[in-house]
């Protein structure tokens, strides 16, 4: 047995005393001195917790025994050997990085000539989310879906991590040594060196290339943008005598005529911003623009048209010149020396619509603009240039630009290569082996070039033909600058290079030095020196980096229009007639020219029109499909000359008869994601730059069998249901509610109480174009997993926000509406009642929240959701991911495992962030302070989020608008999202226009 210490001995007067009371021996002090523990720390505290008799207490022995047992069991539990990494604190914490706090950097990127100034959010040093730069006067905080998704490319596991020579990984010293040696010998021998890069939108890069050319006079540089539209380049050369960049300025446009121009497809945040501003009407008295669209394929712009007429692209030139002729006849002055004698009258547009169009353009005058799609033939572009000049349009900015190499220039380079003209070829961020239409000729010619170097990020078709591969940094790891109207934009790295990579400019600087020229040590120094020379005194380079830009006056003057070019174009337009089927090759919504094909976010973002993912089916008009007996998903053979592609077909309502549409940028043969997705359409591209993307005489035949399409929407009609409301301006003025009557909603349940906030959202369908930037923004913000084509085909895509697209009316030219659909955060949510484990419930600020940890996955909630916005992890979509893929995850959002339901959270992490900040500053939340990712990403500001309890908030005011309605309101779920009815602005006499579509 154990020896026990004797209890406290008899009380004696203490020799030492702790308090005065103890010294003078008050009874309380005596009692206190007797007790071992001070009040609250004694066994009594245990007793309250454990309910043990006060006298018995918990002995120290027992306590220690329990502690050891706890420790031992805790150790057992901790013996989990699942190979979790070691967590170590920073030994030396980087100054910039505070764990848990996001850093934001201003930077920029470009796609072709279009520049995207962005704000990059980084967490623990990792860039994780992009938005537009809010300081930029043009983009105003918005950017394009492809730019938003480009952060994923930074963490592409396929990225080349170190230089390669002849297929083996090696050092920079070796590859640069080889490159420099070849450059030096070409310089001395006078042999030509070919450098192909993308469009040069950066002044500093342009200067560096000029320096390079000076150091190596035999350099031949081509700026190659395979999907930019060679016809536009050709037309610019004809109309203005030089390359131009044409940007719409929709803020000034009252009447817009699109000749197949898809300016609302999300690529141009500035145009979308201006469009939204003109369409978000508070009352019918507000001014609204009118969009006329004449086009062959159905584009997003076409779906947003007030009047759309399907016209074959080959006839657009003739139609546009006929328009010019008619306007001239009505008294609109032609530029001096214009010869329109070859233009004849047109019959593609119905007479009444035509008369209205002519009247509209004439009335609007300087406030009218004609925009031509890059894929349309050159003569249509020239006609648009003429029309804009005639109208004196202020709604378009035409600027001189760096010329782009067309397919003809590439062909010339191939001929020269084959002739042994070049000693070396350097491919910088381009993939001509994939994009050049004659891939075989390219391969044979390139083999004749003795030295081939490739600078890029992910090995591709071109790198496979090169000896030396120089891994390039992602733009988020690189320096750069761009000039945009209104601002000079800076690009700065937001993270140190992840791998042993360098940016292309640094490679060029190294080459410059090797060639004996004086050069800066780094592109950063080069850039900084250039900027410091030209910076205004009021600002500094550091400030410019902080802002991401320096605002400058837009002084560029438009090049003058060459009237003499019209006659030939009009003549050409008059004779061009489609023979059989004509094929329009458009840049892929997700892939562009193939450079984004390895981006799984983009591959899974549904095409805004066809709702296809992971594929490029050929779109066939309804009439042609009927004639050829083609049904949705049928395999077809598309042939032109000797080239035949086997593709699935989709039926495209609204597409002009005789027109086929096919997206470029698919069918890559390299890349973990890109390989084998779709078919490569570049071989079908024409070698005539004036109509490069428009191919005549294509044959289409059924190939037998049917493909299960990876399509996110398979039913395209609204079935007469009141889901998307659409008003004409006339209806908006007189009867905005139409025949919709809301029945009184009766409920047995008590209404939800919202003591502080009630978050709500308003989506303006008139401003929403369907561009899908919100989808990508949400994917990036909320770690939405990608499931792949097979799972999409099964219907298991995971997007928290989707864009529903419905066709109405006749199939030949339907009315099209778009509706962003996300969790409606219903006050009486049908999903909440039915969850047996309370995994989904309502927050006191109006959020329908998901407790992923609690979800067991009965899927009852999803069945009972009338909007079908809940997404179930049918399989394990995330756990197998490792670095670098996981680095793109937003640490504020849980990654969901298999078997768990998930859905839009109204970006609860952002709400919490703002709440905490406001609390810290001792204030209430400002209206507009909380932004959801979709709202922040929406270029046309169609989405407004805020507190419905605050009557002054923007969202609360919009809820009361006359266009406001809720989807499926009659079910009584009380959704927190209000939609504002779509608006169409057809000409007043539109009801009688035959062929004009949107006059319902």
């Amino acid at each position, binding site marked *: 047995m154990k020896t026990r210490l004797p209890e406290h001995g008899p009380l004696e007067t203490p020799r030492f005393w702790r308090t005065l009371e103890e010294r003078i021996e008050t009874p309380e002090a005596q009692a206190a001195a007797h007790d071992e523990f001070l009040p609250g720390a004694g066994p009594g505290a245990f007793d309250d917790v454990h309910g043990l008799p006060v006298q018995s207490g918990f002995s120290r*022995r027992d306590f220690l*025994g*329990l502690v050891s047992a706890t420790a031992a069991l805790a150790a057992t539990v901790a013996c989990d050997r699942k190979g979790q990494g070691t967590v170590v604190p920073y030994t030396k914490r980087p100054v910039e990085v505070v764990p848990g706090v996001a850093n934001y950097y201003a930077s920029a990127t470009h796609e072709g000539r279009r520049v995207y100034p962005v704000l990059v959010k980084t967490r623990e040093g990792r860039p994780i989310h992009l938005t537009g730069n809010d300081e930029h006067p043009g983009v105003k905080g918005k950017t394009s879906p492809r730019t938003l998704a480009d952060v994923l490319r930074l963490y592409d596991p396929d990225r080349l991590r170190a230089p390669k020579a002849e297929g083996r990984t090696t050092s920079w010293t070796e590859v640069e040594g080889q490159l420099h040696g070849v450059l030096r010998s070409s310089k001395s021998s006078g042999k030509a060196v070919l450098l192909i890069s993308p469009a040069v939108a950066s002044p500093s890069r342009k200067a560096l290339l000029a320096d390079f050319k000076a150091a190596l006079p035999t350099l031949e540089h081509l700026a190659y943008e395979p999907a930019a539209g060679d016809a536009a380049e050709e037309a610019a050369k004809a109309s203005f005598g030089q390359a131009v960049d044409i940007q719409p300025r929709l803020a000034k446009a009252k009447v817009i005529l699109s000749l197949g121009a898809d300016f609302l497809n999300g690529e141009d945040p500035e145009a979308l911003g201006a469009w939204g501003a003109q369409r978000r009407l508070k009352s019918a008295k507000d001014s609204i623009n009118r969009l006329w669209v004449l086009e062959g394929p159905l584009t997003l712009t076409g779906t947003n048209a007030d009047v759309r007429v399907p016209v074959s692209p080959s006839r657009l030139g003739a139609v546009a010149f006929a328009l010019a002729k008619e306007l001239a006849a009505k008294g609109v002055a032609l530029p001096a020396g214009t010869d329109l004698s070859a233009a004849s009258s047109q019959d593609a547009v119905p007479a009444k619509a035509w008369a209205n169009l002519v009247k509209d353009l004439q009335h609007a005058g300087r406030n009218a603009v004609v925009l031509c799609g890059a894929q349309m033939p050159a003569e249509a572009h020239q006609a648009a240039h003429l029309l804009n000049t005639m109208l004196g349009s202020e709604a378009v900015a035409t600027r001189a630009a760096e010329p782009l190499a067309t397919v003809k220039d590439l062909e010339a380079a191939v001929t020269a290569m084959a002739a042994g003209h070049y000693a070396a070829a350097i491919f910088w961020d381009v993939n001509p082996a994939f994009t050049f239409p004659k891939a075989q000729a390219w391969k044979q010619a390139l083999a004749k070039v003795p030295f081939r170097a490739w600078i890029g990020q992910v090995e591709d078709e071109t790198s496979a033909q090169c000896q030396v591969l120089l891994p390039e940094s992602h733009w988020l790891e690189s320096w750069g600058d761009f000039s945009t109207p209104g601002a000079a934009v800076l690009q700065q790295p937001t993270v140190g290079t992840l791998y042993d990579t360098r940016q292309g400019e640094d490679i060029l600087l190294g080459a410059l030095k090797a060639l004996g020229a004086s050069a800066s040590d780094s592109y*950063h120094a080069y850039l900084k020196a250039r900027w410091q020379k030209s910076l205004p005194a009021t600002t500094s380079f550091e400030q410019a980096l902080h802002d991401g830009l320096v605002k400058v006056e837009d002084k560029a003057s438009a090049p003058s229009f060459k009237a003499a070019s019209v006659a030939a174009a009009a003549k050409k337009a008059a004779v061009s007639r489609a023979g059989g089927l004509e094929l329009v090759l458009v840049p892929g919504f997700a892939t562009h020219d193939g450079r984004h094909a390895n981006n799984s976010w983009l591959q899974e973002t549904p095409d805004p029109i066809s709702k296809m993912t992971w594929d490029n089916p050929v779109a066939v008009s309804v009439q042609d499909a009927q004639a050829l007996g083609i049904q949705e998903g049928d395999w077809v053979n598309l042939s032109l000359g000797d080239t035949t592609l086997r593709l699935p077909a989709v039926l495209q309502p609204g597409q002009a008869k005789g027109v086929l549409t096919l997206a470029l940028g698919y069918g890559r043969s390299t890349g973990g994601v890109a390989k084998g997705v779709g078919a490569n359409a570049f071989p079908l591209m024409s070698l005539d730059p004036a109509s490069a993307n428009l191919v005549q005489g294509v044959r289409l035949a059924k190939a037998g069998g049917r493909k299960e399409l990876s399509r996110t929407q398979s039913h395209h009609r609204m079935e007469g249901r009141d889901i998307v409301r659409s008003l004409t301006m006339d209806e908006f003025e007189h009867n905005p509610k139409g025949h919709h009557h809301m029945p009184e909603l009766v409920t047995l349940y008590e209404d939800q109480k919202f003591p502080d906030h009630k978050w709500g959202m308003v989506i303006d369908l008139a401003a929403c174009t369907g561009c899908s930037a919100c989808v990508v923004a949400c994917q990036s913000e909320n770690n939405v997993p990608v499931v792949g084509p097979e799972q999409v085909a099964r219907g298991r895509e995971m997007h928290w926000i989707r864009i529903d697209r419905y066709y109405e009316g006749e199939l030949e030219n339907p009315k099209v509406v778009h509706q962003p659909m996300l969790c409606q955060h219903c006050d009486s949510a049908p999903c909440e009642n039915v969850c047996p484990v309370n995994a989904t419930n309502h927050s006191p600020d109006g959020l329908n929240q998901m407790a992923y940890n609690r979800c067991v996955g009965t899927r009852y909630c999803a069945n009972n959701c009338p909007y079908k916005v809940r997404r179930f992890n049918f399989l394990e979509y995330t756990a197998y991911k490792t670095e670098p893929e996981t680095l793109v995850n937003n640490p504020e959002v849980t990654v969901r495992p298999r078997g768990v339901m998930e859905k839009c959270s109204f970006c609860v992490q952002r709400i919490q962030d703002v709440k905490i900040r406001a609390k810290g500053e001792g204030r209430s939340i400002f209206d507009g302070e909380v932004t959801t990712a979709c709202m922040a990403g929406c270029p046309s500001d169609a989405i407004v989020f805020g507190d419905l309890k605050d009557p002054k908030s923007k969202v609360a005011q919009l809820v009361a608008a006359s266009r406001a309605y809720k989807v499926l309101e009659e079910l009584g779920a009380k959704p927190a999202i209000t939609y504002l009815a779509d608006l169409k602005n057809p000409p007043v006499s539109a009801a009688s226009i035959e062929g004009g579509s949107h006059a319902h």
Partner: protein
Amino acid sequence: MADTPRKPIVERATALLAGPFLLGQRALSVVFAPGQDAPAEAPAPAVSRLTITPPEHAIKRRG
């Protein structure tokens, strides 16, 4: 305090669980002590973690 009735059940449970576990762990650590002439098993390839470094010369907007 000292004469409070002990709770043998607690102690017994403690001894029952912790004792064998701790002893067993000790025993195992003796048997499988590192440095023994166990066949040099190739160490599992370390999970490759990327080093994230902050960008040089960049100026952040906020954060």
